[in-house]
């Protein structure tokens, strides 16, 4: 194997200055701007945002899986301490699966509807065979390996599941199977894109428990994309909050929950947690609506909804300010910036 990067650092992924958008029939539509991320091995990074905030595009950019009409720009993309910026697509393809893998939001859609679940396992094990002779050996006995893996993710009768078509399985079951597929790769980076959104409450909880459990067992780096603050709180080590294509706040989970800096984070926490703690009072609102990516305000993208807005907000796109243990994209914290900008 030539595409295995050396593992001499525990930073699995480092991204600087990621921009992405789509070429549309009526021009270019920017979706995300200036995204900077870092994930260490064994760490769970949560990306939180509402629909349209660009969190999925961020995730798919990392795997080079955006649709053909997408355009991405990177300042820097290090993966396992190897600079993969501008790597050619075929070489990057070799990284996918064996080194970075995704758990999708809709497990039903992630399986080839014309093929049985077993076929998927077979192909995935075949794909891992290049990793090492052990893997090659395992690929030969893929059936047992698959059943073992499925047991790990809580599928008791894997042998039955192998012979079934995706549509014959429930969403929860499929999500477990998909996770098993991803685990078969033993990837260095796992991206989970709202993996529980389409599931019922109880199953959702079970899958989340499974993730929590896996994350403890594996030393992979995790990126967990979600719109749900509660889930993020219970699962993630660090959290990046996205709004309208930008990371507006990034920091350790506990700190962000205890002391949200960005007005948007504050509002989000207030509205989300208000329901949970059940004050019984009127819920706190974030007034207004999410902006359309093609129609962003000229200044801070949150300015029109921000309770702390002041003059410059409406004309200036704030950069990400480095605070101790925190990055915030808000002019309120300009003076607290420690990077010396």
């Amino acid at each position, binding site marked *: 194997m030539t595409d295995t990067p050396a593992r001499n650092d525990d930073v699995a992924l480092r991204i600087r200055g990621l921009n992405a958008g789509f070429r549309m029939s009526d021009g270019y539509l920017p979706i995300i701007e200036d995204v900077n991320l870092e994930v260490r091995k064994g760490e769970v990074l949560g990306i939180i945002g509402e629909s*349209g905030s660009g969190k999925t595009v961020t995730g798919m950019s990392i795997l080079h899986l955006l649709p053909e009409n997408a355009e991405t720009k990177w300042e820097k993309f290090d993966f396992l301490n190897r600079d993969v910026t501008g790597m050619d697509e075929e070489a990057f393809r070799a990284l996918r699966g064996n080194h970075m893998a995704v758990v999708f939001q809709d497990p039903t859609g992630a399986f080839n509807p014309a093929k049985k679940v077993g076929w998927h396992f077979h192909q995935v094990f075949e794909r891992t065979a290049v990793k090492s002779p052990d893997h090659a050996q395992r690929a030969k006995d893929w059936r047992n390996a698959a059943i073992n893996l499925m047991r790990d993710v809580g599928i008791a009768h894997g042998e039955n599941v192998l012979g079934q078509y995706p549509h014959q399985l429930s969403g929860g079951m499929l999500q477990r199977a998909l996770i098993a597929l991803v685990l078969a790769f033993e990837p260095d980076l796992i991206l989970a894109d709202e993996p529980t959104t389409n599931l*019922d*409450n*109880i199953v959702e909880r079970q899958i989340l428990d499974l993730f929590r459990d896996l994350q403890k067992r594996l030393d992979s780096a995790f990126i967990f994309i979600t719109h749900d603050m509660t889930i993020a709180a219970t699962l993630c*080590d660090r959290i990046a909050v996205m709004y309208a294509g930008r990371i507006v706040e990034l920091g350790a989970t506990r700190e962000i929950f205890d002391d949200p800096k960005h007005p948007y984070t504050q509002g989000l926490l207030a509205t989300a947690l208000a*329901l949970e703690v059940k004050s*019984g009072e009127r819920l706190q609102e974030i007034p207004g*609506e*999410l902006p359309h990516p093609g129609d962003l305000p000229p200044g801070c993208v949150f300015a029109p909804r921000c309770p702390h807005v002041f003059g410059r907000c409406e004309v200036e796109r704030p950069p990400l300010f480095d605070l101790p243990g925190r990055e915030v994209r808000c002019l309120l914290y300009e003076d607290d910036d420690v990077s010396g900008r």
Partner: protein
Amino acid sequence: MSLAADARIAGADEPLMRIDDLTIRFKLGGGLSGIMSDGPKHLDAVDRVSLDIRKGEVLGLVGESGSGKTTIGKAILRLYDAHQGSIFFRGTDITKLRGSALKALRRDLQMIFQDPASSLNPRQTVRTVLATPLLLHRVCRHDEVDRKVDEILTQVGLSPIFRNRYPHELSGGQLQRVAIGRALTLSPDLIVADEAVSKLDVSVRSQILNLFRDIQEELGTTIVFITHDLHVARYLCHRIGVMYFGKLLELGPTNEIYENPRHPYTEALLGTLKPTAKDDANAPIAEAGEAYNPTGTTVGCRYYARCPYRVDHCQTAHPPLENISEEHKVACYEWQRIGQR
């Protein structure tokens, strides 16, 4: 003040609507699936459910997808025909109403749908949407329509400038406000809100929840609020009914249900709410067993396969809904064992 705390409200003794032994039966696919499956050719989406809806209350119906909560909601509104049982509204069985009597009934019963984008005719302006029922039911004269429309718009927190907009020019939150406005045009006695906030973004959701509460407090409209979101249910509802595969499993005042659940399923559902610390290994909240197959031939309790409390007796028949206190009903043979953990 908490609404839920005020569970017993004026006129509670005399239900606005009484659902009696209601069954809604769907024929299963005439085409392929019907022929291919060996099972029965129909599905009881709602299976012998009895329920009172009290005047002025917010009754929450919670459950997972496929539990029949939406079906009940639509049956109340005569969008589905009852296979068996009756629905008494102000003393009249409405399941048999036709023609002008049905049209008259429409004024009193309204609905708010899950997906705001598809609940408004994309070819009609907001004004048309709101004016149609006004004119159809002769609520006001032609020359008063615009004034009345503006009144409604204001009531749901929209500026009158929205009057001539088309749905695609509105955001999700605004659309839902229009939909709520439409439901209010005829000053109905009862509104069924079907997952009315689940498609909305977190930051917009609280706006709409607040709107619901305002309307309820101002107008005293009875609301049947269908949701899978337990936080939302707790926030908004006076009483909660828990459904599972067509059956009503538990019914009681919100506080009672949340603090003292007496059905294993309710308990499991609520278990998903408990914020889990990141490192906290949780006991399974429900067995991972196969869910009940609604088209199968299983008799006995529908929750049997996943129930941690199951005993042999549970397999004989689905337990009846019993009063365990004046306000609290449970359909479980083993309810006394629940909640004691």
